[in-house]
Each structure stands twice: as C-alpha cells, then as structure tokens.
C-alpha cells in the first residue's frame, strides 16, 4: 500500500464521520497488557517515527529478538519500579472505521480503584488472561468490576497462545472456566479471542497457527462492536449545569442531555421543585435544533418563568427519575483513609453537590469470591453496599438503567479529595434486582416485575412508600394511635391506607382462627396485602397484635430496606386488662376465648423495633407526633 493510499482515510471527509469506542484494558502484571496496547498502536500505524526508532534502539540494545512493543507504554513500567502511584493512562488510536480511546488500567492486586475509574466511561473491556496461567482470581476481579460498572461488552483476550503451542484445548478450558464464573455476573456480551500480542496473532490479522478459531480478530471486533449501548435514549434527563442570561429576553439552561431526547413543545417538569412548563427552544452550539439526543450539549429555554438553577434536573412529566434523600448504592472506596459510616462527606451527583453521610454499610463484597462480609468500614480498593443520606434531595435513576444519573462520587470535605465512587441501586434496598451480581431472591417473594415501578408511583405521590407496623397487646392502644396517624397523614396529602386486625378478620381472613398456624397465616396474608399497598407507593399503616417475632420478620422482609417501620406499642398487661375496651380479656380469663395473647398465648416483645411507644406515659396525640417525627427524620415523609 502506498503512502497516499494509507493516509487517504485520515485526510478525506470520512475522518469526520467515524464513531468512537472507549475501552479499558485490564490484566495482571506480565499478562502482556503493555505489549498488546503497543501492538494495537503499532499495527494501526499510530506510532510516530521517532517513537518507533526509540524503541527499536532500546530493544536492540537489550538484545531482544522482537521489538519490545511494551516499551511504547513504558510510563507504567517506570512507575512500577519506582513504586509510585500507578494510575490510569489514556491512549489514542484510530483506524479508518473508528477512533479509539484506551483507558489503560494497571491491574495490580490493589488497584480496584483504577479499574473502576477506567471502567466508568468504557463501553468495552478487554480482560487479559495469560494462556499458561488460566483464569486467575484477578481475572475474576476484572470481570466482576466490569459487570458492576455495567460495561456492555467484554473481551477475554487469551494471550501468549504461542507459549502453549496455539492449543485449542487450552483455549477451550479457559473459556469454560471463565464462563462458569461469568454465569454469576450481569454481563450480556462476552467474546473470547486467542491471541499472541507479541507476535501479532489474531490482533489485526487472522492467525494461521489457529485455524481452529473461527471468531473475529481483536481489532475487527473493536471496529465492529455496537457502540452507544451505554447511552439511554429513552428517559429524558437534563441536569442543569449553568444558567445563561445574555440579555433580558433570553434565559437558557445549559447542560448536556444525559439521556433520552428533547424537542420544542415537550411537557417538562423541573426537579426537585416539580414546577412544570413546556420546552420553548433547544439551542445547539450552532443554533436552534429540532431535537437533541443523549450526549448533546444544548441550552434549553422554557415557556414559563420557572425557578431553575444549577443542580436541578429537567425531565418529562410522565417519565420522572426518583427523588429522595436516601439512596442505596455500591460504593468503591478510593482513598487510604477508610470510609466510616456517619462521617460527613460531600456527594457530587450529576451537577448537584450536597453534604452527605453513609448511614449504613450493609455488607462488603469480597471482589475475588463475590462473598458478602459484615464490615464496619471500607478500606481503599474495597467495594460495599451502602445507604447514603444526602442533605439535599437527589434526582436519580438506577445505575443499571442510566449511568449518568445513577452515578456519584463522595468527597472528603476536609481535604476536598474524591474518596468514593458510587453506583445507585435504588431508592433503598429494592431487594429484587441488582446490577453486578445476581442475588438470591427471598423465598417469600414470588418475583414478578411490577408493571409500573414503585419509584414512579412514589414520584407522583410526592413521598416514599412505607409500611408502619404497629404491634402490641390487645388494648395497648395500637389502633387508636394508628387511626389518628392515618388521618394526620391523609390530611397532609399522603397516600395512605390503614389495615386493621379486626377488620381483616371479618373478610380476607374470615376463615382463620387463633391457633398458632392460623395466626401465622393471618399475618402472612396481611403482610402481602401491606406489600401491595407499599408497592403502590402508599404509607400502609398496619395494626396487628402480631405476637410472634418470626412473623413480624417475615412481614419486614417483604418490604424494601428502610421502609418498614416497626412500632412497638408497649403497655403493661395489667393496664391492658384494666382498659379492656372490648371486654376480651374478661372473656379470655373466663375461658370463653382460647389462645388469647397475654392470657393463654404468648406475646414475644420486639427487641429491634424502630420505635417503642409507652402508652402509659404518652397520650395518643403525643404518640402520633413521635411517629410522624420519626418518619420525617428518616425521609419517609416530606416535612
């Protein structure tokens, strides 16, 4: 090929029509990552002559048989030797089809944080495996992080095939081992390519030594893999970066369309204030646009004078993100000073910043085994499931559906350093789906995805759904408090429903008696009903004696984390007997009622209730006030 032919694609207009693939590379030390990157740069002729000369000289000086392409990305080697912080490096090359950005992430044991950083913008990850070593713990770690970060395409590059006689058996074994592990992960597209980075087999040209391999070469795959899978083109989200006000007539909201699309005339809502308006104009850098899509930088003008500032989000009225102060997220810790619950941090999410803290570290994930472990803190390079409480409400989506509105970082306000990277799993534990790993689904739950997600119903209701579960002896005062509470909630505009023990006994559970089995069945039914109301976005107020711990636990497990509030209405049995509003104690003591809680059937008092109310010391009013305060503090009721 003549020089002119070779450069033609880069000088004519087709250069401007290329698309772009950002990919990350990960491998353990000496798997051949530097060699592979050097090979890609070399074979795509992305190397300047002076660079090439330099490494040829260096290789010759060392008496090496082949030009050591690893020297091209030599920076890292030097760092390794000097033991200074190894960091993500970005490299560039282009073929006539595509421009590529490589996030070169050093795969050293401790460098989970580098991999997470590189993976955060990647659409494809190459995981290197040394054919001689097979699938190591570290390969699994790389795969797990790729799936956690929701990289749409994985390439397992089985390198150094020249050192295993280009053996198909070796390849097949590695594929099998990797697949066994990958089955536990949430990745859709994995391809396995046998290569020799050193000799160039299956990198750009098909290897003659591996006729048994029918798949694409690495470069062919990189050039043809579908790009844009990370882009969500459905849900319109527009985090406002800054307000442009060049003159009195023009007030525009500048930002980048995070997802979806927008056009003049769209009915929108500004979040979190929920003011509504219509899109007047969508201005691109070169003037008005008919429509703008995910990734486009635009300035949006609205028909009405609404109050919008940086950190607000514009969405469509009938497709809103979640709004709330509490999120559940996978958190990767990036700093030597460990993450501790309740320490003050700053959260940066889309264009919003707020004070925040980690209210709960649910578990830590061993990134090598995927086991969950109890933990009180996260150390550098560790990943855990946490609950983050933000001082300002966040407008967010699940990371899985929208990496733009589902990601955040935590900053240490004392040093201003970025210390954590988070991927939102949901408003709080939505137990039933999770990115990264498949989760055991509770035995109690028959899992059917809800047709309309609870988050959307909650957004419309303007408050989170929850279940307030009152437990206590008959006559303790549960029902009076619950009834009053429901009225107060209703008066405040909340969606609410009271489920009362006596009531359900007449209908839904009219066939049940009071022996232990029937009591359990009674609670099972009402717990599921409570769940339905909860999923509908209601504050379900439940008042049941529910004497057994196990049954209350069952009810709790049906409801998302943090949304089940157990209120123990504590009242001395003698006081209950004295009150005896329905004359039941009297009948029980006379033996006219069997299995009566407190008389002839036990009551297992809760030990971990969210609230304990002593009705001997508190009026109904005071008790209701306490419950409301508790809901407000926990973000379950807008104050």
């Amino acid at each position: 090929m003549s020089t002119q032919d070779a450069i033609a694609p880069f000088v004519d207009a087709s250069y401007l029509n290329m698309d772009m693939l950002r990919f990350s590379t990960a491998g353990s030390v000496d798997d051949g990552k530097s060699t592979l990157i050097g090979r890609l740069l070399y074979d795509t002729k992305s190397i300047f002559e002076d660079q090439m000369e330099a490494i040829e000289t260096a290789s010759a000086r060392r008496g090496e048989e082949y030009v050591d392409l690893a020297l091209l990305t030599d920076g890292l080697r030097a760092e390794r030797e000097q033991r200074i912080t190894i960091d993500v490096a970005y490299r560039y090359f282009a073929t006539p089809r595509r421009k590529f950005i490589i996030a070169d992430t050093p795969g050293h044991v401790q460098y989970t944080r580098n991999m997470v950083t590189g993976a955060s913008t990647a659409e494809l990850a190459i995981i290197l495996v040394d054919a001689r070593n097979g699938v190591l713990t570290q390969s699994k770690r790389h795969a797990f992080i790729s799936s956690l970060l929701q990289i749409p395409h994985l390439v397992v590059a089985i390198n150094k095939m020249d050192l295993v006689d280009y053996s198909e058996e070796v390849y097949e074994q590695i594929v099998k081992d990797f697949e066994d592990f990958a089955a536990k992960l949430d990745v859709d597209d994995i391809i396995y390519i046998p290569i020799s980075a050193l000799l160039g087999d299956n990198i750009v040209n098909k290897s003659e030594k591996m006729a048994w391999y029918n798949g694409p070469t690495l470069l062919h795959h990189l050039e043809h893999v579908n790009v844009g899978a990370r882009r969500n083109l459905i849900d319109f989200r527009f985090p406002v970066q800054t307000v442009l006000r060049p003159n009195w007539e023009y007030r525009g909201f500048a930002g980048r369309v995070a997802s979806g699309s927008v056009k003049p005339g769209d009915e929108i809502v500004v979040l979190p204030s929920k003011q509504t308006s219509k899109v007047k104009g969508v201005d691109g850098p070169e003037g008005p646009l008919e429509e703008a899509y995910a990734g486009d930088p635009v300035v949006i003008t609205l028909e009405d004078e609404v109050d919008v500032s940086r950190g607000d989000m514009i969405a469509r009225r009938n497709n809103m993100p979640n709004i709330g102060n509490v999120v559940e997220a996978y958190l990767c810790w990036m700093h030597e000073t460990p993450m501790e619950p309740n320490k003050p941090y700053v959260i940066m999410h889309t264009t919003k910043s707020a004070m925040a803290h980690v209210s709960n570290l649910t578990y830590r994930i061993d990134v090598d085994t995927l086991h969950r472990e109890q933990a009180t803190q996260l150390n550098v390079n560790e990943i855990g499931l946490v609950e983050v409480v933000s001082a300002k409400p966040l407008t967010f989506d699940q990371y899985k559906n929208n990496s733009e509105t589902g990601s955040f970082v935590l900053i240490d306000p004392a040093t201003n350093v970025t210390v954590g990277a988070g991927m939102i799993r949901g408003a709080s534990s939505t137990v039933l789906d999770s990115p990264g790993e498949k989760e055991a689904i509770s035995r109690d739950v028959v899992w059917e995805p809800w047709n309309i997600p609870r988050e959307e119903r909650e957004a419309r209701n303007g408050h989170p759904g929850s279940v307030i579960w009152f437990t206590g002896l008959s006559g303790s005062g549960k029902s009076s408090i619950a009834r009053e509470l429901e009225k107060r909630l209703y008066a405040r505009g909340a969606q609410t429903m009271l489920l009362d023990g006596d009531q359900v006994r007449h209908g839904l559970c009219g066939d049940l008696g009071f022996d232990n089995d029937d009591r359990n069945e009674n609670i099972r039914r009402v717990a599921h009903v409570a769940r339905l109301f909860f999923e509908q976005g209601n504050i379900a107020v439940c008042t049941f004696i529910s004497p057994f711990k196990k049954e209350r636990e069952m009810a709790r497990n049906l409801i998302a984390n943090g949304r089940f509030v157990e209120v123990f209405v504590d009242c001395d049995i003698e006081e209950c007997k004295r009150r005896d509003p329905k004359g039941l104690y009297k009948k029980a003591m006379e033996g006219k009622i069997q299995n009566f809680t407190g008389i002839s059937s036990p009551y297992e008092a809760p030990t971990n209730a969210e609230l304990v109310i002593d009705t001997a010391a508190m009026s109904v009013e005071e008790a209701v006030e306490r419950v409301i305060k508790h809901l407000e503090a926990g973000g379950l009721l807008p104050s």
Partner: protein
Amino acid sequence: MVNVTSPKRTHIQQLESEAIYVMREVAAQFERPVILFSGGKDSIVMVHLAKKAFAPGKIPFPLLHIDTGHNFEETITYRDWLANEVGAKLEVRYVQDSIDKGRVKEETGPNASRNALQTITLLDALKELQIDCAMGGGRRDEEKARAKERFFSHRDMFGQWDPKNQRPELWNIFNGRKNPGEHFRAFPISNWTEMDVWQYISAENIPMPSLYFSHTRPVFRRNGMLLAATDFLRPMEGEVLEEKIVRFRTVGDATCTGAVDSFASNLQEIIQEVAAARITERGGRSDDKRSEAAMEDRKREGYF
C-alpha cells in the same frame, strides 16, 4: 456539529460535546476562570469551543496571554483580532515586566529563551487577577507524561501539580473543590489528538494565523532548528541567513519555535502532513520533509 435528524454522533461531535461540558463545568464551579491563550492552534480551538459553549451569550471569562515579548507580529495581530471577534476580554501580562521587577532573571547567550520564565509571570498573573481556574489546550496524546492528566487538575498554594496525588476522575463528574489560595488547571480537549484538532479546524472553518501556512521568510539554522530572523533574534557568525518556503507547526516564543520546510498552504495539505507522519511505515522516509514537519507539531511551548 449536531445532526438534527438522528441520534448517531461522530467522534468529533462527541469530543466537542465533552469539551463544551467541561468548559461549562468550569464556568459553573469557579468564580474567576480564564482561558490561557498562547496563539497556538490548540488555544485557538479552545476559544472557538468556548464561544459555542456559551452562545448566544458571550464567553463569560477573559483570555489571558503571557507575552514573552518574543512573539511573531502575526501572533499578536491574530490575538487582538480574535479577542475582539469573540467579544472576550483580553488580559496580557509581560515577561518583560517580571524581568524589570526582578521576579525573574533573563537568560543570556545565543540560546537564551524566555520559555522557562513565563511560568513565573503566569503564576503572578493568576494571583494578581485572583484566577481560580486556568483552562489550557493540553492534550493527553502529546506525550507520555500527560497521558494521566485529569480534566480538572488541582494545583496547590504554590501552583504546583502533584502527579502522585491526583484525584480520581470518574464518569462525567468533575471535582473542582479547593481551599482558598489553591487553583485548578482544566483541559477541556484532553481527549483530542493532533489529527482531531486539525480536522476540527478544517471542518469548522476556523481562521488560522498565517504563520501556520507555508510562506517565504528569512531563516537560519541553529541546533537543527530553522529559526526565523526577527528583531530579537539574529543569526550569529557562521549561521547563514536564507529565504525559504516554510511554515510553523506550533506558534509560540519565536526564539525557540522552529519553522519547517513545507509547501502546505491550506488546511487539507496540513492534514496530509500530519497523517503522513502518523501512518507511514518506517523506511525510506528520512527525506520526507512533510513527515519531519508534522512530527515537530507535537513539541510544544512550555505553558504547562
């Protein structure tokens, strides 16, 4: 660059969008940012992007030029024209003033350059103007060391960069928090390659200073470089002054910016030069002036 009919976006559109996003983040997160303007092609592209980022408004921050006093006349003319054209405020600070105030000491000898001195003038200017973020046209593909630079790069009280202690940068979240007295450098075109820059200039029809295109001028050879004879730089004994057809690939301090033999008189031809240097396999090309020319494009003045 936005195509109105389909959601498909080319790499240049994506890079443009990214740069605009970063510039708007800078405008939103900092109180007194500037664009460092050197007269070179990267800073010209930066100004063009800034214009787009804040349209229909004006660029909401000034351009800052650190003038070594050794600039080509064309650079100064272009600079003043551009600032006026985009309606941005232009701040110029002179290395000569730093020398006069005794802040820096002028180098002596035939190879004396003010390149190193301008760092002091720059830091003084940032302090004087209370700049909290200085945007530059640095690109990661320029050299190995820059491959790890962040979009938002934190500088301490002394304007120093600590490569060992950079903040991780994930997704599109840029952490610009700092203590009083500290500042940031921001690099909106980090992910652009030299080819992207030239192609963009060509696609967007950005007017470029005449120095970039081939022209005839008196030059002489020193240390393997073709230097232009100017008021402040004359050939020494033994150095031959000759008229040549040349162009400049970087435009900076005239005492250390070499010209190259080149007939590239328009953007298409410059792009050819750049492509040839990148793509050509080794061998038989040592006499290819075009590739030699383009290669030097990567050597840049020492702003950063």
